């Protein structure tokens, strides 16, 4: 541990070298940075039709406030030469299209592409940001940003993502939720936090991603195997948590968010302040922090004892950007203390059967913010250092180093309460070099190499051994666009070396006395494999496109799957690892048909099939494990060939100018082809309908703007696609289907010069008592009842 600090210091020193030398070169005054000699900036780009993606010839691009005007040529290109660094307003207009504008501080040559929307389509007061065009991936993907993301404040990351089709969450009581993409979670999906692979104790279904959702300004989910860019393990998909880019125009601003939630009396305060000093235009910084406190959650009929939690998170970022290069640093800490629901304190199988018989969990509880034993104490640190260097007009080289430290302490209900019964510490170092090469004709792409080192240790009772792993990868992705066609191809090679360290288990070794019966075992595993992707988008016309993607990804078994050996608390299971497990490989096929930018009806349908060879899963043994605490279900890791097939549909219909109807449905079927039966613990069919009324201005001087009110109903079916001898694998049959009524409303209040954004969210308004199949605590208690969330967001400009 301590020796890494030395490395870090060394690294920080190295990172400071370019910074310091750059500073010395450019001189300390801002005046000099905008001197004549630097005025050689070229702004250029392409203007295309948003739907057709065809180029727009003769579109006018104006640099507002300057005499400069450019008209797009036969290729849709525009350009401005010999500009000095500064803030420019780009305004793009073309007959029959809505004008777009972008205000930005430019300090280096930049390519800014615009996609214009045909005029007639601007029905609602959608916020049209002239952002740089996003590459449409050939895989199905969803985004959450702006107000829709803001409406999820106070919820966990997984709950926020449930707004997207094809996503659900696996829960452990009311306070722990993990995202599920197309039926897959934990080790089969990747979470990229600010561009860094989130590395924690992902294998545990009760270990939620240690990320403060307030950090994100955009959440993106790539559905299906996406191993090429992000590395092995992305069999089910990738979640990208992206913070807002640092300010690139001079000024200081801040935002204060306040959230209150009724069912657990949760209070959240989150603030952010960011600045780009006018005197030092190269520098940008941001500070952000969140405090959360919640007490016992309430179901319709009772409180859930010991389900409160507390969270303290902060992050700091700073960047130094110059014409040809830039460096930035980011640090974040996430800390939570969360109680584990008392009703789930079960020992052996008999206890679980007793719990299933009860109508209410024991003990009876009242509301409290106090957190008793058992509880978890989790801290996650992320340090990211990033530098880029422009190689020519459109090429860019990125270098990234990241260090993560995750500590998880589990305090038990028994024994010495001042010490955790189990402590895991996992430390990860990650380095990546990525080169976005300059455009070669219509070909755009990137090449990269990455390396990761990880070390895991524990103290206390055994569950997962010490281990050390080295992972290296090389990848190459290209994208080609012309007329109606977009093609994408990528290839990646990964190598992984893993060494576990543990004492032999079948001998009396818990005394810690090393000896012949207490041999240190150091098994090693080496895995290497290829990932690939091949995709295409074809535009049938301005409103209809079809995307197809075939991808293959793999993952190596995790250390817990290989070597876990012990009782999984709260589940009544004795889990045995299997050191003979091999690589799991997915072949994922997906087609997405999108009907977009229409006046009334818009929609998207996505179908997929994911063949997974050597799918790793837990199979209960017929013989229970006997211990001094009684019998526990024996679960062993096995491999079989499986298939995940599904469909995601979303559609909306504009009924009147103000009223819109939207519908979403997700279905997934997971089948074990080797055993010829369905897999268990797969998300059930979800179907959601909503009616939304929007009104842009209300009140005397439009005091209330962007008003909306929405009513929605969510139907979740009972899981019927299950194996025949279901109760040999689970303690209870899948729970009944349920329907929830939810509502949302929001407004932006103009109080003089100050804006205040207000949101109100009501969940489970009918106060329905229900249980969800993917909640590991469904044996013990109902889900939370009616809950109202009030959130206020106050942006401040200085």
């Amino acid at each position: 541990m301590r020796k890494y600090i030395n490395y870090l210091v060394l690294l920080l020193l190295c990172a400071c070298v370019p910074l310091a030398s750059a500073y010395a070169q450019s001189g300390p005054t801002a005046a000099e940075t905008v001197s004549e000699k630097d005025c050689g900036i070229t702004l250029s780009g392409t203007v295309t039709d948003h739907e057709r993606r065809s180029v727009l010839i003769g579109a006018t691009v104006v640099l507002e406030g300057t005499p400069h005007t450019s008209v797009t040529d036969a290729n849709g290109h525009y350009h401005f030469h010999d500009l000095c660094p500064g803030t420019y307003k780009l305004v793009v207009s073309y007959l029959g299209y809505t004008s777009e504008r972008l205000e930005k501080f430019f300090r280096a040559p930049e390519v800014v592409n615009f996609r214009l929307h045909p005029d007639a389509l601007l029905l609602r007061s959608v916020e049209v940001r002239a952002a740089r065009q996003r590459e449409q991936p050939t895989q199905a993907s969803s985004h959450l940003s702006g107000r829709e993301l803001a409406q999820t404040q106070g919820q966990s990351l997984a709950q926020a993502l449930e707004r997207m089709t094809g996503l659900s969450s696996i829960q452990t009581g009311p306070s722990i939720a993990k995202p599920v993409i197309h039926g897959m979670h934990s080790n089969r999906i990747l979470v990229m936090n600010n561009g860094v692979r989130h590395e924690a104790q992902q294998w545990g279904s009760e270990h939620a991603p240690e990320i403060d959702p307030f950090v994100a300004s955009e959440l993106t989910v790539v559905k299906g195997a996406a191993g090429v860019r992000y590395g092995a393990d992305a069999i089910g998909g990738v979640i990208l948590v992206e913070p807002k880019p640092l300010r690139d125009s001079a000024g200081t601003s801040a935002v204060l968010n306040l959230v209150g939630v009724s069912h657990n009396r949760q209070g959240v305060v989150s603030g952010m302040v960011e600045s780009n000093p006018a005197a030092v235009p190269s520098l940008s910084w941001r500070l952000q922090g969140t405090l959360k406190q919640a007490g016992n959650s309430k179901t319709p009929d009772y409180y859930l004892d010991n389900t409160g939690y507390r969270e303290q998170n902060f992050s700091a970022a700073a960047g130094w950007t110059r014409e040809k290069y830039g460096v930035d640093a980011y640090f974040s800490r996430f800390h939570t203390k969360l109680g584990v629901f008392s009703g789930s304190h079960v020992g052996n199988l008999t206890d679980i059967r007793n719990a299933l018989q009860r109508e209410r969990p024991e003990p009876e509880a009242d509301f409290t913010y106090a957190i008793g034993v058992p509880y978890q104490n989790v801290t996650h640190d992320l340090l990211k250092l990033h530098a880029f260097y422009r190689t020519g007009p459109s090429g860019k080289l990125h270098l990234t180093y990241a260090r993560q430290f995750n500590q998880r302490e589990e305090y038990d209900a028994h024994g010495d309460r001042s010490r955790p019964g189990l402590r895991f510490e996992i430390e990860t170092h990650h380095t990546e070099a990525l080169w976005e090469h300059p455009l070669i004709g219509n070909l755009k792409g990137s090449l990269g190499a990455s390396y990761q080192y990880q070390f895991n240790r524990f103290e206390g009772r055994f569950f997962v051994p010490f281990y050390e792993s080295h992972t290296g990868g090389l990848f190459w992705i290209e994208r080609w666009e012309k007329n109606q066609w977009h093609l994408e191809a990528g290839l990646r090679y990964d190598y992984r070396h893993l060494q576990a360290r543990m004492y032999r288990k079948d001998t009396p070794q818990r005394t810690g006395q090393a000896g012949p019966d207490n041999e240190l075992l150091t098994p090693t595993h080496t895995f290497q494999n290829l990932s690939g992707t091949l995709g295409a988008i074809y535009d049938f016309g301005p409103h209809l496109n079809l995307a197809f993607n075939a991808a293959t990804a793999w993952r190596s078994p995790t250390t817990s799957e290989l070597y876990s050996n012990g009782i999984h608390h709260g589940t009544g299971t004795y889990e045995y690892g299997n050191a003979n497990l091999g690589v799991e490989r997915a072949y994922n096929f997906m087609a997405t048909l999108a009907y977009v930018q229409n006046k009334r009806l818009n929609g998207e349908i996505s179908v997929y099939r994911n063949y997974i060879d050597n799918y790793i899963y837990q199979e209960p043994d017929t013989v229970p494990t006997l211990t001094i605490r009684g019998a526990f279900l024996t679960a062993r890791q096995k491999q079989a060939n499986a298939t995940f097939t599904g469909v995601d549909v979303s559609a909306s219909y504009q009924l009147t100018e103000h009223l819109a109807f939207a519908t979403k449905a997700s279905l997934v079927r997971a089948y074990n082809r080797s055993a010829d039966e369905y897999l268990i613990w797969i998300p059930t069919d979800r179907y959601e309908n909503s009616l939304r009324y929007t009104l842009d201005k209300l009140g005397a001087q439009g005091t209330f703007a962007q008003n909306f009110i929405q009513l929605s109903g969510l139907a979740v079916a009972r899981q019927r696609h299950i194996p025949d001898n279901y109760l040999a694998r689970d303690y209870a049959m899948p729970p009944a289907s349920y329907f929830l009524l939810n509502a949302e409303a929001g407004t932006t209040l103009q109080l003089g010069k100050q804006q205040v954004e207000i949101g109100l969210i009501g969940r489970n308004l009918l106060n329905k008592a229900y249980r969800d199949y993917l909640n590991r605590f469904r044996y013990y208690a109902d889900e939370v009842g009616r809950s109202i969330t009030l959130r206020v967001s106050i942006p401040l400009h200085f």
Partner: protein
Amino acid sequence: MKLFLKPSLAILFAATVFTTSSCSNDEDPLPENEEELITTLKLTMVPQGGGTTVTASYRDLDGDGGANPVITGAQLAANKTYEVTVQVLDESKSPAEDITAEVQEEGHEHQFFYVPSPGLNLTVTSTDKDSNNLPIGITTRMMTTSSSTGTLQVVLKHQPGLKNATSTINTGETDVEVTFPVQIQ
């Protein structure tokens, strides 16, 4: 500027690669330490009015998993009363840790339950009380009648905030659950 930039970026990259690739940890795993490991449950049965003291025990010295437990059953005399004391121990430590005292101390949230199998002519009565005047079951009186064979299940329940006049063997979390073969002759 370029003069400075390229080497320094190269240094940064080299440094990061060096940093991460030179990470190697030779740390040996710590010995496992299960808080409150119970390896052994022992019943000491002293016959009233003379006779041999009988000891029954369940020992699983390496904890859950690993080697099988060693179970020693009880042979009791017919029509006899035994004063019985139960002990729970962690014999993986040296000297063995007696956890019974802790159970006694937290008697208001623990209880031992004794369940003879049907057909075994044995009755069990607790002879101790906790601070709320409820049985704990560390000391019991066992009475045998005619010859028979069967089993005796001993269950220790942890019932924090749950132990009361109506709580049963089905209340709370199981700390110990063992079954002994018993012969009465």
